[in-house]
């Protein structure tokens, strides 16, 4: 039964090492760094006596009190001429589009007094449907990145647009003069561009310089899949997926919830498919086969560890098993160690044919071809996969890129313009891009800042941030969206030479009549996107339509869906494809080059919000590292992070002659014989924040079968005999094995909706009693704010939040969203090590195992063997559950009763309020909080120079602090802070309702975490409103309170996690 499961927060808790127990029982995990305060040189070397100190103290007190008598003169500067749409103190929202070359998201931008301060999902979008992820949430901070180039650069020096335009223009003309034979001597190398107008701009450019060509290449490529689809369906396109319609999802190493293809869209779909309710009794079953423990794998009902080199064999075995059930021939697949499991998966898929989905992460033509055939055999095209509605993301072609590099090597390229691509950093070493790049006569980069490629280039023509420019996007056939500037370019004349939108730069060089990109987009849309406008009086009609589209952010055009992808499965020569499948490695360690949830491929590496976001699985911040199966680590003698939970061993990882040194981190569930290293780190030219974080493993990307492979075989790992401190939030604030996450299986839940959620009873002198009966406190759940005698209930507002553990995928979108909304400071790695991270919401990750201590005792193991034996099987097959924890807003709050100055108190709407200006910093509340959600300001994070590099909201950083939310105060040193349920939004929402003379509508007030959740796992609302979603959820039998036995009566309630693993595949 599930409730016998033992949860632990990390291996050190499972093993209960003495150091862990010692740390667990202490208030703070680390010793107080008194040395840090008193150990400064200036203090130890000064000869100030105690007497002097007292003198100074007296003087300071006197001076301070005198100074306090006079308030400073505060200046206030209104606009000279007020823009019509801006009223100080009122937000403006603009619909726009986030696309950074990888992730697409339709967004709403909140601007305050002209500054974008928050990003939210756009519910109008048919693609992302209002979902966001951590990267989108954090992108607003990248706008205020101090590292951005403030002017164009020529030959490493600041220059002006005039000079740059002239010099590059001359070189382009000279290159184009070589004539048609020199085709390709001008090249634009870009990451995926989904803007049709930008494609048109590039076409104009090529028209002017006929020898130019455009090469698209993605650092994390889907080239193999496009090629496979070309072979299968005759078009090199990616399909659209519907994870919500799939009853069975099988993913072979595709991390579709956080990284693969369109993760924001897919998490929304996945969340919808995983939700259960009275009306919807079924949920999808998810089987993941992978090497590293990805977020997607962590959410799977069944997870099977395979090596990356086995992906091809596994896919073929699965196809062969499915084909057997379908009665078609697929040849006989060579046996794999997983044959038994695969045949079970195949029958599961076959039973759900037409509503199943198989996806694979490999960038390999053969693997993807086999997957296409599996889906075709299962009849999934037209239901869960659609080849008529194509996905325009990841257009990169590995072959074209390789050809370009070899052209460059041969000296055939005179001018190379890189736009969105950063090959100096993220190109595979196999191609030798660096040497090739040096041979290009004129190297131009459109990077927004002096990144690795820009530093190697002759010219940097900095592009605007996406929040500063116009753009459009066409992520799917028929789906269009517009991006509009939410702020004027930050860097512009007269202070700087300024940045310029890349499209305008290209149009200028192309000598186009229209160089204004806004007009260009409008013209393009008039002709191609919104052509239904008739000719007579068309302008008026078009402007109307344009404005509507701009307001909605998106427009959907009808497309023809044939519901079937033409593929002749029988006609395909399977043996030809199979011959090209990657062969299983003969030996040696395999290294998976994966992407972390926050940093991804490193595009926003200089974003402190993303760096400080704990990885959902490892909970490590600010670093990349080698993930390794703990059992193997033990064999190799690496530190298991038990004694001191942040000191890791450093290992040397050697691949094809090159080696890196990185800390090793124990990762239960990592396939044996493999290690994982995240790409996106080791940036050398990304800015102060990203400097010196981790190592870059992009050069290890392999080139085989004309595609890039994101794993390496034949690696060696050896100890470097060093240690390294990593900032993990993993073992903080333990809850000591109490029933914190409750979970059940789908079958059990169908039988009994309250399964594994039985009411807890308290032992009293009169026997077992319900919590309600032994309560000493008054009931706080009032029905009306005003004392009403005529029993008129449900007048007041009573805020509660429901957290569906079944939907939470652990992606961390809420954490970043909360930081943005509530001005939560970034503290940096050294402070994270000291357990002083400031996030108001954390996502706890628990590993679980079915093996209990009792079982171990029955087997008569010694204590150490018991613990060790317990670890090994589960380390290979752990189940993972995520649990977001923020202030629980207890009605019987333990924090409130211990505050000596009443700085924290309870409001009539159920919110536990924290008054910073009243707090004197005794920290009693944090000590007494059973949920450990209170955060103490150890420093003036906004002023202390120690945080200059990491905290964006520094007083001296006039750019970074523009991101602050003016409705929330910036806390100063010595006060406690915590989740407020986004009180500013509640107050704002109520005020809006009052101004509009109507009651508060359900769903209009949403805290930042709930609003940004891609799976709607968090639901917030007023329970006194019987129609509200939260009022319905509170009656659900799945809901329970965290640590209910303490009778703190939180206003946050959780709903049991349900695993769809009834017919467990592994058994």
């Amino acid at each position, binding site marked *: 039964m599930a409730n016998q499961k033992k949860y632990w927060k990390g291996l050190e808790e499972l093993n209960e090492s003495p150091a862990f127990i010692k740390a667990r029982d202490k208030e703070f995990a680390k010793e107080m760094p008194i040395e840090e305060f008193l150990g400064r040189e200036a203090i130890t070397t000064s000869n100030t006596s105690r007497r002097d100190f007292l003198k100074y103290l007296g003087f300071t007190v006197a001076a301070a009190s005198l100074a306090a008598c006079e308030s400073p003169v505060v200046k*206030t500067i209104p606009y000279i001429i007020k823009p019509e749409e801006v009223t100080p103190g009122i937000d403006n929202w603009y619909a726009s589009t986030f696309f950074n070359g990888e992730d697409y998201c339709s967004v709403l931008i909140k601007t305050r007094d002209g500054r974008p301060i928050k990003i939210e999902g756009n519910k109008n979008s048919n693609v992302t449907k209002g979902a966001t992820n951590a990267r989108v949430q954090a992108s607003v901070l990248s706008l205020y990145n101090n590292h951005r180039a403030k002017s164009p650069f020529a030959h490493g020096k600041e220059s002006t647009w005039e000079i740059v335009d002239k010099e590059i223009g001359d070189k382009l003309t000279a290159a184009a003069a070589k004539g048609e034979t020199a085709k390709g001597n001008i090249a634009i190398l870009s990451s995926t561009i989904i803007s049709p107008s930008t494609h048109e701009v590039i076409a104009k450019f090529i028209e002017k310089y006929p020898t130019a060509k455009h090469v698209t290449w993605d650092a994390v490529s889907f080239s193999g899949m496009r090629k496979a689809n070309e072979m299968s369906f005759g078009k090199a396109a990616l399909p659209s997926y519907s994870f919500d319609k799939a009853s069975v999802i099988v993913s072979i190493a595709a991390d579709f919830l956080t990284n693969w293809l369109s993760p924001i869209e897919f998490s929304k779909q996945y969340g919808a498919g995983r939700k259960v309710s009275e009306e919807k009794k079924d949920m999808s079953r998810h089987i993941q086969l992978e090497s590293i423990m990805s977020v997607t794998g962590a959410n799977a009902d069944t997870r099977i560890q395979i090596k990356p080199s086995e992906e091809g064999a596994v896919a073929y075995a699965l196809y062969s098993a499915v084909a057997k059930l379908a009665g078609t021939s697929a040849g006989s697949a060579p046996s794999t160690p997983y044959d038994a499991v695969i045949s079970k998966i195949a029958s599961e898929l076959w039973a759900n044919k037409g509503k199943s989905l198989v996806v694979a992460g490999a960038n390999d033509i053969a693997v993807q071809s086999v997957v296409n055939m599996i889906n075709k055999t299962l009849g999934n095209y037209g239901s869960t996969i659609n080849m008529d509605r194509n996905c325009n993301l990841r257009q990169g072609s590995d072959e074209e890129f390789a050809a370009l590099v070899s052209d460059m090597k041969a000296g055939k390229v005179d001018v190379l313009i890189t736009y969105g691509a950063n090959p100096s950093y993220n190109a595979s070493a196999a191609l030798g891009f660096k040497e090739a790049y040096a041979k290009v006569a004129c190297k131009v980069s459109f990077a927004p800042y002096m990144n690795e490629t820009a530093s190697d280039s002759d010219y940097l023509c900095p592009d605007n941030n996406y929040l500063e420019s116009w753009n459009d996007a066409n992520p799917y056939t028929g789906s269009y969206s517009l991006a509009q500037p939410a702020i004027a370019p930050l860097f512009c004349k007269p202070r700087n030479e300024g940045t310029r939108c890349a499209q305008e730069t290209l149009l200028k060089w192309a000598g186009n009549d229209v160089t204004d990109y806004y007009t260009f987009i409008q013209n393009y849309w008039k002709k191609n996107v919104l052509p239904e406008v008739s000719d007579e009086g068309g302008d008026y009609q078009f402007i109307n339509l344009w404005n509507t589209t701009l307001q909605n952010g998106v427009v959907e055009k009808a497309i023809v869906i044939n519901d079937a992808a033409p593929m002749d499965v029988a006609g395909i020569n399977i043996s030809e494809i199979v011959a090209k499948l990657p062969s299983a490695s003969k030996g040696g360690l395999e290294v998976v080059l994966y992407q972390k949830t926050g940093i991804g491929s490193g595009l926003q590496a200089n974003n402190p919000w993303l760096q400080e976001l704990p990885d959902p699985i490892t909970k490590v911040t600010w670093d990349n590292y080698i993930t390794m199966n703990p059992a193997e680590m033990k064999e190799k003698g690496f530190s298991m992070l038990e004694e001191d939970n942040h000191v890791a061993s450093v290992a040397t990882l050697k691949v094809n002659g090159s080696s890196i040194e990185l800390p090793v981190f124990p990762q239960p569930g990592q396939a044996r014989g493999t290690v994982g290293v995240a790409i996106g780190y080791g940036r050398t030219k990304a800015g102060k924040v990203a400097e010196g974080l981790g190592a870059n493993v992009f050069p290890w990307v392999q080139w085989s079968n004309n595609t890039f492979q994101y794993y390496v075989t034949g690696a060696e790992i050896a100890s470097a005999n060093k240690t390294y401190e990593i900032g993990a939030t993993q073992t903080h604030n333990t809850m000591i094995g109490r029933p914190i996450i409750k979970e059940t299986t789908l079958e059990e839940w169908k039988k009994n909706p309250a399964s594994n959620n039985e009411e807890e009873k308290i032992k009293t002198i009169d026997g077992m009693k319900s919590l309600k009966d032994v309560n000493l406190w008054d009931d706080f759940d009032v029905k009306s704010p005003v004392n009403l005698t005529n029993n008129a209930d449900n*007048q007041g507002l009573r805020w509660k939040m429901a957290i569906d553990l079944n939907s939470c995928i652990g992606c961390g979108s809420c954490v970043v969203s909360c930081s943005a909304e509530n001005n939560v400071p970034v503290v940096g790695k050294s402070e994270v090590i000291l357990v002083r991270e400031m996030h108001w919401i954390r996502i706890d990750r628990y590993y679980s195992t079915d093996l209990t201590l009792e079982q171990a005792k029955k087997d008569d193991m010694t204590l150490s063997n018991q613990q060790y034996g317990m670890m090994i099987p589960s380390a290979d097959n752990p189940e993972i559950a995520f649990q977001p924890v923020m202030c629980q807003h207890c009605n019987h709050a333990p924090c409130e009763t211990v505050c000596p100055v009443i700085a924290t108190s309870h409001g009539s709407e159920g919110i536990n309020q924290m008054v910073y200006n009243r707090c004197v910093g005794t920290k009693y509340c944090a000590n007494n909080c059973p949920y450990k959600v209170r955060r103490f300001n150890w420093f003036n994070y906004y002023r202390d120079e120690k945080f200059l590099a990491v905290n964006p909201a520094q007083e001296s950083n006039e750019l970074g602090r523009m991101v602050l939310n003016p409705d929330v105060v910036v806390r100063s040193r010595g006060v406690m802070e915590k989740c407020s349920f986004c009180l500013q939004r509640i107050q704002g929402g109520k005020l809006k309702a009052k101004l509009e003379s109507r009651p508060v509508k359900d769903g209009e007030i949403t805290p930042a975490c709930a609003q940004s959740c891609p799976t709607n796992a968090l639901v917030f609302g007023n329970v006194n409103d019987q129609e509200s979603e939260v009022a319905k959820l509170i009656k659900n039998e799945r809901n329970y309170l965290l640590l209910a036995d303490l009778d703190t009566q939180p206003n946050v309630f959780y709903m049991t996690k349900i695993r769809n693993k009834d017919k467990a595949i592994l058994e």
Partner: protein
Amino acid sequence: MNKLITKLQKSLAAFLAFVFALVFTTITYAADAPSAANIAEGGKLFHANCATCHSLGSNKVTGPGLQGVTDRVPAPYQDWMFKWIKNNAALRKSGDAYANKVYADNNGVAMTVFDGTLTDDQIKNIIAYVANPPKEVAQTTGGETSTTGSAKTESGVSDKWIVLLIIGVLLIIITVLRTVRKSLLTVANEKKGIPTVDMGFWKGTIHWIKTHKVHFAVINIFLFACFVTYGWEYLWGIDVTPGYHPSQPINFRHDVHAGQNGIACIYCHSGAEKGKVAGIPTLNVCMNCHKGIQGSNPDFQKEIAKVYDAVGWDPQKAAYTKAPHPVKWNRVHVLPDFAYFNHSQHVSVGKLDCKNCHGDVASFTTDQQFAPLTMGWCIDCHRQTPVQMQGNGYYTKLHEALMKQDTSRKVTEAEMGGLECGKCHY
């Protein structure tokens, strides 16, 4: 005291000057027949009908400035101006040379024809007003107001002096009485034959303390109580600054705008109904009126010129010619960052009058802080003020329930949770 007297003298002098000036102006222009009443009437009409296009100075607005107009038009100016104002188009058509010259000088921008809009008498009054622009009168009024202003501040200082004076007088009395007592005691002792020992002041005091321990204790307790009381009061008063009226880069007069001209607060502070801050009007709001109104006296003109300078307006050319620059006002009402205050909540929802918190702004020469802006002051109001439920859909359900229960019941803000920390601090 002397200062006070000087000030009183000054205001008296100013008043006399005002009366004299009034009499003088009346006498000077008595020959032109129009009475002061005519001129006043003309002034009103001028501001209602002409001021949008004509200034009384030399500068051009839409039409030419009217300074010296009586001298430059064909004599007698009354007749010509009457015809021109009544129907300038007809006058031009009649072939009047000067009328056509004026028309041409102003780039053919025709003036409004007032025939039918204004009566003949009204036109005459306007001419009288233009001929006798109200310079001296306005100046005197301005002077007088500022005198009153400083006298007010002076009286604040004198309170302190009076207290000190009383203390001084009391000390003198004590000393005198003490000396008298001493002399009498000496005399009495001499009579009795007891030798007087003069211990000197300090020794005497110490002797007195030793012999009057209870008295001494009582005095000390009293002094200590005074110290604590005043100290406590003083500490509470730190950073509480009602009456704070910093000087401003432009001497904006609320008394003129909100008082004399009766402009509604919301016209300039338009954010008050909509959002968190009432907003300091941006210069384009000033220019809505001040394109035409350039000030009726040099003091005003000087200040309005600052507005023109900031916004880049050239009144001579009636065009925006220079690069604008912002005005850095000194903020009067400063709430600390940790207190959230929203104007619309109080103005639009709570239907409070601006005066409740900002005082009678219409009488302030420079804006000043009226309320103490302390938390106690906020809370007091929340305790007393009934919530404006009627007519607001937000409260419908609660209001109905309350009406069923007790129609006379008023629910205060405090009962609705208006005293909770989280309502203002987040």
